[in-house]
């Protein structure tokens, strides 16, 4: 179980709200992994987590980009590694749920998220504060539209 505390705070509202919601989704999943035998319910929880994570990473990546955060590519690579793992989890679960050790997965995902928020996400905080008004304006758009699409210039794309 992850619990929200001030050391996880970035001070950027749209991001903090995302992180709180993500933590609640991952805690829900961890809870299910512990007790639940209902495969469909677990699939739904993983699906919800996956979708929210993708949207959150996108929002974060847009904000990193608008404030020209220098470690942005490295940060995006971390995001990609995580979404690849969640993707594999879903694929394997689809093939045969029994092959997945859900408890271990829940621990792994919780630890990952906790340390990503506590360490990697803290990395962009200073830069975003330095561009506060721009970040605020863009945040308003991001908040209104969870599916906000942003077409990145090719040269900035991380593969």
């Amino acid at each position, binding site marked *: 179980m992850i619990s929200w505390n001030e050391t996880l705070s970035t001070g950027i509202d749209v991001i903090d709200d995302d992180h709180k919601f993500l933590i609640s989704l991952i805690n829900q999943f961890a809870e299910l992994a512990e007790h639940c035998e209902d495969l469909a319910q677990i699939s739904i929880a993983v699906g919800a987590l996956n979708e929210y994570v993708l949207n959150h990473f996108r929002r974060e990546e847009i904000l990193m980009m608008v404030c020209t955060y220098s470690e942005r590519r490295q940060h995006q690579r971390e995001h990609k590694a995580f979404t*690849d793992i969640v993707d*594999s989890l879903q*694929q*394997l679960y689809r*093939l045969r749920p029994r092959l997945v050790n859900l408890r271990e*997965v829940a621990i*792994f995902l919780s630890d990952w998220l906790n340390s990503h928020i506590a360490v990697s996400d803290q990395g962009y905080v200073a830069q975003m504060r330095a561009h506060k008004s721009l970040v605020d304006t863009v945040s308003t758009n991001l908040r209104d539209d969870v599916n906000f699409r942003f077409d990145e210039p090719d040269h900035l794309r991380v593969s």
Partner: protein
Amino acid sequence: MIYWDPKLETGIAVIDEDHKTLFGLLNALLRIIDDGEKADDAALAIAALNDYATGHFKREEALMLLCGYPGQDRHERDHNAFRQGMKSLQHLFSINAGMVNLRGVSDFLLNWLQQHIAVSDRAYVPKMQESSALIAKASENLISCTSFDL
């Protein structure tokens, strides 16, 4: 330890050889699991099995195409679901071996292979026998070719 069951034979040499090799690779994995499962060794055995299965599927699909087997699409979907799932398994296992239930994997693999060979593979045999000369000719090229591309 599992043994090759002659009832699984299709009579198409290149395919039977592949299937026996897959059983052999599965045995290697079972041995590692029984020996208390060193994650590095298990990862290698899984990778070897996946790679060989991928090559085998390609060979089988090439032969199905050659003899105009009507069930090809469905059959390829089975292959793809397996390949995709096993690729994910390999990935999760490499990130953190504990996330994968390895004992479950060996049961799954054995069941899947037996079932797939006995039912899905069996279904294309009559069609391949009709074109046996063509199949024999094509097989020469396919043997030992793991990255065959159509």
